[in-house]
């Protein structure tokens, strides 16, 4: 290997800097630029010239200044202390930056991702003298009340382990030594490093065949996402993309959540920062933050770091997956990530493909989503982990033919299509039931403890979807000829479809009960709505007037069923009896 030499800047154009005399430099090596010590990454090599994308503002940088090659790719530090942290796009802790630099982000900081000063109590899980391989769990640290952090042998290392002892260690202390067959000794620390652009290894990929429950009715019932699956949420601004992402982050049934705010609004990120610590985890009652890692690279922060932020996020997520956890990663928004790629590409004077995006856009998006999945983790004990990825896309003007949307739809298996029209009607979440899809629907029945109930639920949802489909056609006819000219049965269909929309699909994220609906309650709610439908159809057969039917007071109970406490599902079921009672009451009137 040639010695790595330091170079000299010859060109500065926005976030891209070109340096010469960069002999021995490799693609994606991290460099330090100028006296200001700005962090950058090599993205192009021509002879001894390297183009560098700089993760910080380059104002005041000029030719002649030094570029120091660290000869290592952009990496993150993985170890205890990640949970509850808030990082920028290249894993600098934002809270510590405030302490060090004040309210505004200055350049050239070098605070490491994991705190050095604090100690963690380490408990070994294997005996000294054992042969270990990469991925083996050798011990654990209680990182937060919700996350038991497994310490694993880093990838690429194998041999006999020695020196394990229970005690308090910092992330840099050696907790054990691994001696390989050639006698080489390597210390194992609580912390390991991993290059962000490279997927972490696992033993085997599995089919994602379990549904991830989110408590969001339209998602769980119609368009579920699988554990280890991928989903995409495109929609024009103002359709509640971010609220959907926040809701999923809050309620999704995963052990660890990684939330990447990529090019997001500063105030929105502050909302996350302020709200998440106050939220309680519905599964444990502990603060939600105890299982969350936040990455915030707001839109005014340097564009190159935005490009890196999704990789930083997914690498951290993979690390927890490797411990055998179910991890969910939310990226909001991948369009900003794509735009960052485009901006860098333009500055590199690359030949653009569609809409100025680089030709490798599709490949980058695909390989990002492909890092999701359910896997058998490397090493022992035998365990399975899952990484589910949910990406928001912000297409210009809400146009779904947008390059980024199309490239994303190529790879993801769930599509939640947000519609401006629904948002305008204040129907939230504004997920369009007619155009969205999910390939994981088939696994839905298995997510119920009671399999029979699951089957029933899937059947009812199919029936509900049929009603909605019929509605979309009937509405056109009604528009033209008026509601009076269609049959009573069709009017019933319209009324039930409306009830499905308003009483089931519509969900208020800010209502304390409605914000999360357990799947059993969802089952009961849809059963109730369809029960009224059946009872109504029967009544119509018996000559009951639809006007009277639709005015029954029980309909208000149906509408308010979503606000009934989640642990009192029997109250929802009880409404069915009221339906029967009141509908039967109409028979007498009809007979007269």
């Amino acid at each position, binding site marked *: 290997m040639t010695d790595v030499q330091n170079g000299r800047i010859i*060109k500065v*154009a*926005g976030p891209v800097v*070109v340096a010469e005399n960069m002999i021995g430099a490799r693609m994606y090596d991290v460099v330090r630029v100028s006296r200001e010590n700005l962090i950058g990454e090599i993205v192009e090599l021509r002879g001894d010239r390297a183009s560098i994308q700089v993760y910080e503002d380059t*104002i*005041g*940088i*000029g*030719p*002649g200044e030094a570029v120091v090659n660290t000869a290592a790719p952009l990496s993150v530090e993985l170890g205890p202390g990640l949970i509850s942290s*808030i990082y920028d796009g290249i894993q600098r802790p*934002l809270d510590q*930056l*405030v302490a060090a630099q004040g*309210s*505004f*982000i*200055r350049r050239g900081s070098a605070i490491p991702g994991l705190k050095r000063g604090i100690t963690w109590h380490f408990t070994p899980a294997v005996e000294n003298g054992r042969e270990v391989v990469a991925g083996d769990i050798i011990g654990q640290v209680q990182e937060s009340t919700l996350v038991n952090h497994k310490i694993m042998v880093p990838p690429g290392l194998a041999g006999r382990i020695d020196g394990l002892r229970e005690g308090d260690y910092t992330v840099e202390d050696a907790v054990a030594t691994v001696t390989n067959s050639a006698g080489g000794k390597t210390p194992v620390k609580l912390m390991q490093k991993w290059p962000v652009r490279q997927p972490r290894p696992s033993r085997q990929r599995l089919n994602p065949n379990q549904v991830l429950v989110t408590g969001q009715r339209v998602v769980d019932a119609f368009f579920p996402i699988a554990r280890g699956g991928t989903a995409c949420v495109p929609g024009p*601004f*103002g359709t509640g993309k971010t609220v959907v992402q926040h809701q999923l982050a809050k309620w999704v049934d995963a052990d660890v959540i990684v939330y990447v*705010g990529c*090019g997001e*609004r*500063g*105030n*929105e*990120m*502050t*909302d996350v*920062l302020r709200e998440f610590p106050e939220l309680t985890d519905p599964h444990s009652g502990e603060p939600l933050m105890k299982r969350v890692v936040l990455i*915030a690279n*707001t*839109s*005014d*922060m*340097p*564009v190159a770091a935005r490009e890196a932020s999704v990789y930083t996020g997914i690498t951290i997520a993979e690390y927890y997956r490797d411990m055998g956890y179910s991890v969910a990663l939310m990226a909001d928004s991948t369009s900003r990530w794509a*735009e*960052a790629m*485009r*901006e860098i590409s*333009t500055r590199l004077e690359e030949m653009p493909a569609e*809409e*100025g995006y680089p030709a490798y856009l599709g490949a980058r998006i695909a390989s990002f989503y492909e890092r999701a999945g359910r896997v058998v983790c490397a090493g022992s004990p035998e365990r399975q982990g899952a990484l589910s990825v949910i990406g928001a896309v*912000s297409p*210009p*003007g*809400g*146009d779904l033919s947008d390059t980024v949307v199309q490239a994303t739809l190529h790879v993801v298996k769930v599509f939640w299509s947000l519609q*401006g029209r629904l948002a*305008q*009607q*204040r129907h939230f979440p504004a997920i369009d039931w007619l155009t969205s899809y999910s390939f994981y629907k088939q696994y839905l029945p298995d997510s119920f403890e009671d399999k029979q109930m699951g089957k029933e639920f899937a059947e009812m949802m199919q029936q509900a979807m049929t009603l909605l489909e019929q509605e979309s056609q009937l509405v056109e006819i009604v*528009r033209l000829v*008026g*509601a*009076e000219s269609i049959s009573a049965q069709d009017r019933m269909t319209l009324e039930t479809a409306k009830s499905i929309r*308003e009483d089931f699909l519509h969900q208020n994220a*800010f209502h304390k009960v409605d914000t999360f609906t357990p799947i059993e309650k969802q089952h009961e709610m849809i059963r109730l709505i369809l029960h009224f439908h059946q009872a109504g159809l029967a009544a119509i057969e018996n000559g009951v007037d639809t006007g009277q039917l639709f005015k029954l007071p029980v309909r*208000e109970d149906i509408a308010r069923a979503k606000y009934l406490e989640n642990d009192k599902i029997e109250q929802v079921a009880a409404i069915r009896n009221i339906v029967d009672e009141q509908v039967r009451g109409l028979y007498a009137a009809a007979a007269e």
Partner: protein
Amino acid sequence: MLKEYKTVSQISGPLMMVEGVDNAKYGHIVDIELADGSLRHGQILQVEGDKVLVQVFEGTEGINISGTTVRFLGKPMELAVSPDILGRVFSGTGVPKDGGPRILPKMKLDINGSPINPYARDYPNEFIQTGISTIDGLNPLVRGQKLPIFSGSGLPHDEITAQLARQATVRGKGEAFAVVFAAMGITFEAAQFFINDLTNTGAIERSVLFINLANDPAIERIAAPRVALTAAGYLAFEEDMHVLVILNDMTNYCEALREISAARKEVPGRRGFPGYLYTDLATIYERAGRIKGKKGSITMVPVLTMPEDDKTHPVPDLTGYITEGQIIMSRSLHRKAVSPPVDVLPSLSRLKDKGIGPDKTREDHASLYNQLYAGYARGKEAQELATILGEAALSAEDQKYMKFANAFEARYISQGYYENRDVMQTLDLGWELLSMFDDVELKRIDKKLIEKYMPQFRKK
């Protein structure tokens, strides 16, 4: 010692190439002295070896290759600030334009600013009463928010921004806003309208104006919002003032940016705008906000005109993705003489839920706007249907909703530019309009609230 160069090698559009330069730095500013002794200003866009590309704020007209001297000042563009900037008028680059003296600087600030650390931000949750029902009632504005007005040519966005500047206040505190106004490429009349309005109400004493008119150099518009926000940042975070920043008109800013991009022969994105337009706009809009531990705040109302009222045009589109909502002006309401003609349905304040509620406005606020909104959406559909089929063909229910929509437009939306409605008045008006419906139809409002508030309006 500042070195002077007479090595201009190329001038093209707003750009100038200087060669043989030592030690030039990206983003720094230059002074350009013309052969006739007049002075212009520029900023370095790119440095490659000893070649420097400069954008000239005042335009390149009259600059020649041989007689021009360029001085590299070795610093980024700065604005001299002190409390004395209040009540003054400056150019888009911060040069006094009112004949007054230069500002004796208390400090000099880099106009590019630095990103606010998201961790240091304080969440905007203080309700601002604007006295405009469509904003206070349906899309409440909070301190530290950025809420743009999407307008079109011929629509009264000047009137509504003036009304905002005049009436905006935090309820119960009576604290007034300092106003920072940046005009970018607007007409003399539009600027004068605003200045007169401020003068008439005496608000000019707590205002700072940065004026770049339509006939001023276009490239100066690139600096104008940044200069204005630097002044706003100083007033908010150093002098503890609450600042309302009005940027009018951002479409002109984006066009100036496009001009530079085209001159640099960059690969254009949509409609010829550069691919980095989003990032560039974000560095402007994101300077609004509140910071933990600081008393002041920056609330921003950018105005932009949508070409052909097209919301999907890159400027409104990208703006909408950065700002916390948008207020959209409606041409059809304007024709119906509804003023201010706020198009309620597509307008949105993302932070509305943060500024309202029992302690801030009233407990029924959130349910009320949801219900009004849903009712109006339904009524609008009925209105459209009626234009196709005739009113008589509508069902009784549709007719009721249409009646509601008409009343809503005439009484709730329409209020004129000089009526300052208290938010309680706005809320009560909402109930009064909703009393047209039976309780059962008000699905978005909690039963208890209906029982508490509705009876007094039903009697009438």
